[in-house]
């Protein structure tokens, strides 16, 4: 997995609440058996008309935001389907960080498995960041995972919370499965004890 330490980049404002994973990557793109190449389909139905032409109003189609690396969004980002195709598409497009007041649980976890940092902040902070993002390409935000801060283009700093273990894995780009396999003795002794206690499982 790609490491995440600091990121300075353009933030795209998406003030809509309840942006669901069907919006992020519509179902017709779940037919792949690969993880790669989904960025061109990110937000497909908001981004393109049925003929494949760009919808000019959509934020990522505006010149200032084509190279966005951060999204600032309304509450409950990533709700709905568990599809990991959503963070795959976000990452493949080039977005490494999403900031909102809240995230749906499964999407939030999926981000950390893919080198994406989801940041939850209070509404007042997200309002300030949204306004900063609306300034366009010259207003670059900085996200520092080590320090757990987001800094606006004007230098205003907001601190965020992140689980220490998730932070560690993201900063080091660690493979979860490898970490868990190092605890295989605990899993095996659990299985032996469970086989006694609940043999029907």
């Amino acid at each position, binding site marked *: 997995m790609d490491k995440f330490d600091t990121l300075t980049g353009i933030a795209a404002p998406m*003030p*809509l*609440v*309840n942006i*669901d994973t*069907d*919006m992020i990557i*519509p*179902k*017709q793109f*779940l*037919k*792949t*058996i*690969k*993880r790669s190449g989904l960025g061109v389909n990110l937000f497909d*139905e908001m981004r393109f008309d*049925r003929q494949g032409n760009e919808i000019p109003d959509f934020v990522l189609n505006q010149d200032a935001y084509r190279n966005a690396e951060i999204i600032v969004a*309304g*509450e*409950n980002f990533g*709700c*709905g*389907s*568990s*599809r*990991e195709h959503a*963070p795959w598409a976000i990452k493949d497009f080039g977005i490494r960080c999403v900031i909102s007041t*809240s*995230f*749906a*649980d*499964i999407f939030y*976890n*999926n981000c950390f*498995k*893919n080198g994406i940092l989801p940041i939850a902040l209070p509404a007042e902070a997200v309002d300030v960041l949204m306004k900063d993002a609306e300034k366009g390409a010259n207003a670059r935000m900085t996200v520092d995972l080590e320090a757990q801060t987001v800094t606006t283009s004007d230098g205003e700093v907001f601190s965020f919370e992140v*689980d*220490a*273990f998730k932070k560690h894995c993201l900063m080091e780009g660690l493979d*979860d*499965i490898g*970490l*868990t*396999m190092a*605890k*295989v003795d*605990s*899993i095996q002794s*659990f*299985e032996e004890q*469970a086989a006694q206690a*609940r*043999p*029907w*499982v």
Partner: protein
Amino acid sequence: MSPKTLYDKIWDTHVAHEAEDGTCLLYIDRHLVHEVTSPQAFEGLRIANRPVHAPDKTIAVPDHNVPTTAGRDDPKNMTEDSAIQVAALDKNARDFGIHYYPVSDIRQGIVHIVGPEQGWTLPGMTVVCGDSHTATHGAFGALAHGIGTSEVEHVLATQTLIQKKSKNMKVEITGKLATGVTAKDITLSVIGKTGTAGGTGYVIEYCGEAIRDLSMEGRMTVCNMAIEGGARAGLIAPDEKTFAYCKGRPHAPKGAQWEAAEAWWKTLYSDDDAHWDKVITIKAEDIAPVVTWGTSPEDVLPITANVPSANDFEGGKVGAAQRSLDYMGLTPGTPLTDIEVDTVFIGSCTNGRIEDLRAAAEILKGKKIKVKRAMIVPGSGLVRAQAEEEGLADIFIEAGFEWRLAGCSMCLAMNPDQLSEGERCVSTSNRNFEGRQGYKGRTHLVSPGMAAAAAITGKLTDVREMM
């Protein structure tokens, strides 16, 4: 010992390792797998040369992207992408030695219907699947939730998940439901009250007289939509109804093991003085047959209400409501029962079980549909067979419904079962998101009885008028 909730008890029984910061390895008793969210996980295992840790606890069935029309056991009758995903699951099931129900098997169906039906899902278990509606299995008092594909790979490789414990929320539905009000109306009404993010960070336990009175099918409908309220999982404490449902199922314990299992299952309830981080109480008598008007499952109103205006909302919801109204093509103030409907879909892991089909048949008996098209997609091959045996299929066909093979179908519309632009559908599924059932398709979520009523009148309809 300090008092515990049902969630606390199941959690404590499954912690295989706990780090100092509270990060746990939670042991998984049942891992359900389908064709859409698993290919990349199996590919990951192959690349790392890892086996499936517990193939006996891993059950696969294709459901999301399979056609629901006749002749589908021949891949030539599938779209190319479906055939590739189904072939990949066939191969992965064979190569890794996991349990499998191919499309040709009568036991095939929606993974969340097959699990309970075959007795894989039992009280007190941990159940995961790469699908958010895994919450369904909580109806058995099993801790069940959806995971992403990376976590699917993690469970395949280690039979555990890296987890931190969620908070406990109690949702109590007191008293008795009125006639025409169903489990679907309960679960939608709860989301209408809490919002789609109201459950974020929580595991919900549903309790109270109205929940106890529900059948297992109804309880599955309630827990199924816990995720739509943002919760990691929904739970209902097991009782005699649960045990009766499980007994005799192919993979349920037998003999002395059944006795031992049942004795333990009877300890699975929340202690009287257990701590709850949040409590919500709703009177059953306050719940009406409901319908969604917008593009979020929280956009719930009684069928007797009118289309709202964006100004009825606050904050970020004002813009979202206006966007929903525009998308849905609705005018504020219109009585919901004036809204004309093109299509009716009955099925899904929310409402594709036999009880749901019986409820629809009750309304449809001897009637003809007025909508342009109507489709019933049973949740499994066994549900389909039972509906045929009970004569329900004849009622549906005579009414003008298409009678399909089992699968997820138009709930997520990955297969060819899709709405066209602007088509308005009354659906027993779980999500009314923009484009969910087809590009620019419009979805109103309801119970099976309400869907049947709309099929007959061609409008959103109060099912109580047809009972």
